[in-house]
């Protein structure tokens, strides 16, 4: 097979190089300020780091991301599990959930700012409200398909609540939690951008808006690149190891 004797790691490095090559080639070919070369973007990143602008705004956005992500995940997982395990509760709240899930992002954000004012807590609330229905849906499905045989075994051997959760329920939720985390981080980031663009005077979204008004594509790409790098780092340092711990029992 093609690439059969190339390791996965080298393959992903090769694909990265291909992407950069393609970008560079296009930039040369079109030769316009609207598509700067990768090198130029890297230079902008470096300058922005030196001036302290990029770390400042990235830091603010990452803090908002961490707080709203943590709230959305913990609340969402609890509500999701409750809905998945209790049919009556689910029947009652299902239509609420569907409404929230289909509410346009912009509408939630605008209403939050209009009703509660422009401040940090409201910005986070807007992000959480947008993200939480997805988390609920994921955990509800996970809780629905919990293995009944194993739950009965735990009940028969008097595991108790804590032991049952830790050893029987959580390992079954783990893959769903990982999926919710991965999709969650990227989704929350996208929501935060809109929130910051609409109602904040700091953060990546605010900065991007200024660059947009100047058609400063190089800076827009530079900020995007910085964020993508952070998420990659989280993936490599945190999520991949968690994955392999959670999967070690599989054949």
């Amino acid at each position, binding site marked *: 097979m093609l690439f059969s004797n190339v390791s996965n790691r080298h393959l992903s490095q090769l694909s990265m190089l291909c992407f950069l090559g393609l970008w560079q080639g296009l930039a040369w070919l079109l030769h316009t300020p609207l598509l700067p070369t990768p090198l130029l973007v890297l230079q902008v990143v470096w300058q922005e780091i030196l001036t302290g602008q990029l770390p400042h705004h990235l830091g603010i956005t990452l803090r908002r991301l961490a707080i709203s992500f943590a709230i959305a995940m913990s609340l969402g997982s609890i509500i999701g599990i409750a809905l998945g395990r209790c049919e009556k509760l689910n029947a009652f709240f299902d239509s609420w959930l569907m409404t929230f899930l289909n509410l346009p992002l912009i509408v939630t954000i605008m209403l939050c700012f209009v009703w509660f004012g422009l401040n940090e807590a409201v910005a986070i609330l807007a992000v959480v409200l947008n993200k939480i229905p997805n988390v609920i849906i994921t955990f509800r499905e996970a809780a629905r398909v919990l293995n009944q045989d194993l739950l*009965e075994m735990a009940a*028969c*051997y*008097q595991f108790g609540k804590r032991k049952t959760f830790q050893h029987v329920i959580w*390992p079954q939720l783990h893959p769903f939690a990982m999926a919710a985390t991965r999709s969650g981080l990227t989704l929350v980031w996208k929501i935060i951008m809109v929130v910051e663009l609409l109602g904040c005077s700091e953060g990546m979204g605010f900065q991007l808006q200024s660059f947009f008004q100047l058609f400063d594509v190089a800076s827009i790409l530079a900020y995007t690149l910085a964020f993508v790098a952070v998420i990659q780092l989280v993936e490599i340092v945190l999520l991949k190891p968690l994955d392999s711990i959670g999967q*070690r*029992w599989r*054949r």
Partner: protein
Amino acid sequence: MTDIHIDITQKTYAAKGTAKAHLAIENFKLSLESGQFVCLVGSSGCGKTTLLNSIAGLDTDFVGDIIVGQQHISPKIGYVFQNPRLLPWRTVRENIELALPKLTQEQAGFIDNLLYIMQLDKVQNVYPERLSLGMSRRVAIIRAFAINPDVLLMDEPFVSLDPPTARQVRSLLQQLWQQRPHTVLFVTHDLREAIALADKLIFLSPPPMQIISQIPVPLARHQREDETLIEDFRQQLLSNYPEITQLL
């Protein structure tokens, strides 16, 4: 003492999807003395597993009463399910130890010993997905033995064990039961196995499940190793109670 009194007036499975409602058990009365070893024999699908689940307290959706032991004290119930029901994300050893409320030095030694007798000591740190079905079954049996149960429920536990292993596990079960008598309910299709183990045989009808006959086994414990005695008793049973032949 862990006597068991069962009085199920009716147990019905409600209609679901295309399946019609199903009357599983009707007017079922049975009392077992503490420390008795009882084998339940009946055709498959007759409701034996439903009965064990009700005794274990996993299925409470029936009309009637089941009293296990004294009131206010919940007895320790070891249940060997029809399939092993091991936690795939915990090792063999962890699966066994999790069944204990607290692991003492003495219990750890007991588990070591059981693992050794069942020839599982070499795989105790392996995850269950790597085990054969026969090995997984033995782990599930050890889990039930390890808690020193007051009541032991066994749902065709020796199916898919090869004959020498089954014989070994059977004698281990006898040995443990004699050391520390506890009430055992053992479901099987194999009449020879039932005679070799039980104080009392209970033959059950197809659904709605009722008791056809209760027959004590008059063999002393030391006679149970003798296959000709068991075979003689089996022949005698089949000729005295022709109605049980169709259950086997």
